[in-house]
């Protein structure tokens, strides 16, 4: 069995120990675990900003993790980040499309209008807990809320470019791969996004 195991590692000698190969597989699994652990909260926040719904955002992140693990886990670790964000952006767009379709369908159904996403948010639950540094945290919460509102107001591609480039720290090439467009397009979208955000937030900030 050990001889077959070496077949997965082309660089390992035929009679060499398969342990090195197993170690490589374990290292790869650990690297994937670390990558997902590092990125999961950021991905959730990105999805929350785009979707405004925590459950939908969690579903989108979980789908992105599963797809990455299923289809791209064997790729070099350096490729995971742009791939993951591309999968996530596609998932977010799918959720948004489904919502649009659902809203159109609901518009045709007679009767009292209901929120298709479920119950109205509980204002008590939604309220920010002031805590010990209440005033400062409240201001911070308001600032992030303003930022999220401004980001949601941006066209999709501009929002993606700004979030990936600035908030997630991807370089232009990685952002282009994640968005599936040219680097020139990334620069254009990003520049317009910054301009729009400055126009919206400049007075408040």
């Amino acid at each position: 069995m050990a001889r077959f195991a070496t077949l997965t590692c082309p660089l390992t000698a035929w009679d060499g120990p398969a342990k090195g190969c197993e170690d490589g597989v374990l290292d790869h699994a650990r690297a994937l675990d670390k990558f997902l652990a590092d990125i999961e909260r950021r991905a959730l926040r990105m999805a929350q900003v785009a979707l405004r719904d925590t459950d939908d955002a969690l579903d989108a992140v979980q789908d992105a993790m599963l797809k990455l693990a299923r289809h791209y886990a064997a790729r070099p670790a350096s490729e995971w980040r742009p791939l993951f964000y591309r999968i996530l952006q596609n998932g977010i767009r799918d959720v948004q499309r489904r919502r649009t379709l659902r809203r159109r369908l609901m518009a045709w159904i007679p009767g009292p209008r209901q929120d298709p996403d479920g119950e109205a948010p509980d204002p008590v639950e939604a309220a920010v807990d002031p805590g010990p540094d209440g005033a400062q945290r409240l201001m911070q919460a308001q600032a992030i809320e303003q930022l999220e509102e401004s980001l949601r107001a941006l066209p999709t591609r501009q929002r993606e470019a700004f979030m990936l480039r600035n908030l997630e720290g991807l370089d232009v090439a990685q952002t282009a791969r994640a968005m599936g467009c040219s680097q020139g397009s990334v620069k254009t979208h990003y520049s317009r996004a910054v301009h729009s955000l400055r126009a919206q937030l400049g007075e408040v900030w």
Partner: protein
Amino acid sequence: MTDLEARSRALYEDSVEAVDMRLRSRLTQARHAALEVAARRRGTRLLGMRRSAALAGVAATAVLAAALWIAWPAGAPPAGVVDGGANFADLDIVASTDRDHVDPLDMLQEDADFYAWAVATADQSGSGHPG
């Protein structure tokens, strides 16, 4: 980086750190599910490679056997008889003359008279004996 970019990034980082424990727990579960999928996928691929290697070995053996079967028809004489070149070489060795040794055929030619006499004598003495 402009003020707007720096501040928005700092706010975003704070909000990432502020993700509550319930959500972190669900993210961890999602991550473990993804890692399980990756492990299963790796196992399936490894098994597939082993099966492919075994099938390739069997196929190579079958091809080799078929090639030998076709190239070596049934009822053919052994290679030593079929190989005429080897037989002629053997004859050459037997028929070749060597200065240091006496050829048995030459010996037979030189003593032909002696052998003819010996045969005749033997016939006469045989016929002379009673019974």
